[in-house]
């Protein structure tokens, strides 16, 4: 007995360690580049400079400032305006991207559509184009001196379009999001449509249901999980909007240096040297995204997977 126990214990120990060893690189990187930055961000968000001593001789000392940074972030008009702009942008972009992605996916799956291979690949192509370059392409197509749309308008005696004015700017930016995002979302929805066994529709077809009715009553409810997933990604992506407006800025004077929350955060951190304020705004943005994501997931999980659980 005494001779066997140590050996077995060593074996068990090795067995228990194996999954941790496999997960080890991920845990180290996850800790280093997610957990610690988040913790550090929260720490920084409570710190800032305070003036110590009185009058002109006061020294600026770094220390804990309580929730001052959060109060500052919530009452910062530029940051709030940035959130407002992101909301308007998202209200235009997200339904358009998801709606068209769903429409294209359903049409690709429709038995009567032709040339679907070509269309599917063409609509997916922009996924390969980085956001910065997509913004450059569309930026030049918006810019009056190089815009083909404005060129045509001028040829017909009109004037150039003002793609960077208000409220057109929101639509111009939403259009870049649509162009970049519709193909990827379409593929996700389309692939889950394909995973539905076709026997399910056969009965409906025999009963004389139209393709439209099959799409609305059978297909859309069945691919709802994929639509929720794409919607969630769209919401997260919208709150992180940065590279598109930042790239268009040299072309469009209407985009300020704090046009969206992330631009304002970047400016606070690197131009204004206010790390505490930037950290507080980051924490609020991350927290808001997290809460919103969980609410969306919970809401739909109950509705779409409720019967499965």
């Amino acid at each position, binding site marked *: 007995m005494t001779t066997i126990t140590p050996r077995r214990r060593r074996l068990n120990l090795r067995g228990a360690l194996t*999954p941790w060893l*496999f997960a080890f690189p991920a845990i180290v990187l996850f800790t280093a*580049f997610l957990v610690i930055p988040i913790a550090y961000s929260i720490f920084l968000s409570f710190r800032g400079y305070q003036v110590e001593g009185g009058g002109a001789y006061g020294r600026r000392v770094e220390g804990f400032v309580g929730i001052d940074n959060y109060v500052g972030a919530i009452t910062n008009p530029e940051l709030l305006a940035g959130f407002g702009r992101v909301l308007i942008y998202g209200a235009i972009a997200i339904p358009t991207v998801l709606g068209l992605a769903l429409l294209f996916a359903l049409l690709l799956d429709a038995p009567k559509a032709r040339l679907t291979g070509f269309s599917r690949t*063409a609509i997916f192509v922009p996924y390969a184009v980085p956001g910065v370059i997509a913004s450059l392409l569309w930026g*030049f197509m918006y810019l009056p001196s190089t815009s083909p749309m404005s060129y045509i308008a001028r040829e017909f005696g009109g004037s150039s379009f003002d793609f960077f004015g208000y409220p057109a700017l929101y639509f111009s930016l939403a259009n870049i999001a649509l162009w970049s995002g519709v193909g990827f979302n379409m593929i996700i929805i389309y*692939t889950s449509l394909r995973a539905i066994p076709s026997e399910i529709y056969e009965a409906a077809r025999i009963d004389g249901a139209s393709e439209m009715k099959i799409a609305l009553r059978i297909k859309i409810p069945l691919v709802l999980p994929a639509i929720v997933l794409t919607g969630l990604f769209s919401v997260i992506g919208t709150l992180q909007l940065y590279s598109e407006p930042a790239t268009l800025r040299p072309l469009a004077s209407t985009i300020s240096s704090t046009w969206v929350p992330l631009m304002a955060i970047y400016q606070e951190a690197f131009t204004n040297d206010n790390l505490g304020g930037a950290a507080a705004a*980051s924490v609020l943005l*991350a927290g808001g*995204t997290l809460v919103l994501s969980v609410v969306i997931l919970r809401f739909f999980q109950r509705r779409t997977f409720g019967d499965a659980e």
Partner: protein
Amino acid sequence: MSATMTQRRPRRGFSPAATLVLLVGAVYCLIPVVWVVMAASKSPRELFTSFSFAPGTGFIDNFMALATYGGGVFWRWGLNSVLYAGVGAVLSTLVSAMAGYALAKFNFRGREFLFGAILAGVLVPGIVIAVPQYLLLANLGIAGTYWSVLLPSIINPFGIFLCRVFAQAAVPTDTLEAARLDGGGELRIFFTIVLPMMAQGLVTVFLLQFVGIWNNFLLPFIMLSNQDLYPITLGLYSFLSRGAGDSDLYPLVIMGSAVSVIPLIVLVMILQRFWRADLLAGGLKG
């Protein structure tokens, strides 16, 4: 998308409306690509005077101007992008596969906690933590180096999540037990049995991460100050912001966009045949 290929459905009838709507979508998506190729062929004067979709005469001049600009710095940016996205995505896929396998195929204390933490990581907007990441790496003295862009790109919570889903579906427990009875070491089992079984899912994870790193702008933007280390996106951005009000650089930016877009489109079109988008959709149920 191989799942798509296997499940062909009969095409019956012909709907002009459905076909037309899809073609309109296809044309809409191709227009900017056609435009940039056409615009790249224009001399600076033609760019502002001739109709956008008419080809110009300056293609070779523009190309040479781009290729020799700043001592060929454009090619350097291209190589940097390939390095960040290629090496980053390969390492990311391997790290995700190992973690996903551990989470799917082993019962261990703390597994649920680990998985929950990674799920939360999927939802944390990666970009928001770029500023604290910069401060931490600056303290370690590696901000502004290749490592500062490469290392944070390796961890991909969504990739781990997908790998777990895929390991659950594709790796039978019986096979693992048989291999262990045969005396195979855990690492050997992983590399010779598990990885090949997960290969299809790993292509998806690789492709997503490759495009994700290639497209990432804020991380290199925050981390890097030395122009020689820029990826292509940041390089073109710096062209444009330097040329603000100076339209002489426009042809260069347009040529650069055209040259950098074409290879990536080709790559994605080749790889899209192998990737499994159904994995993404199925992942939510897990």
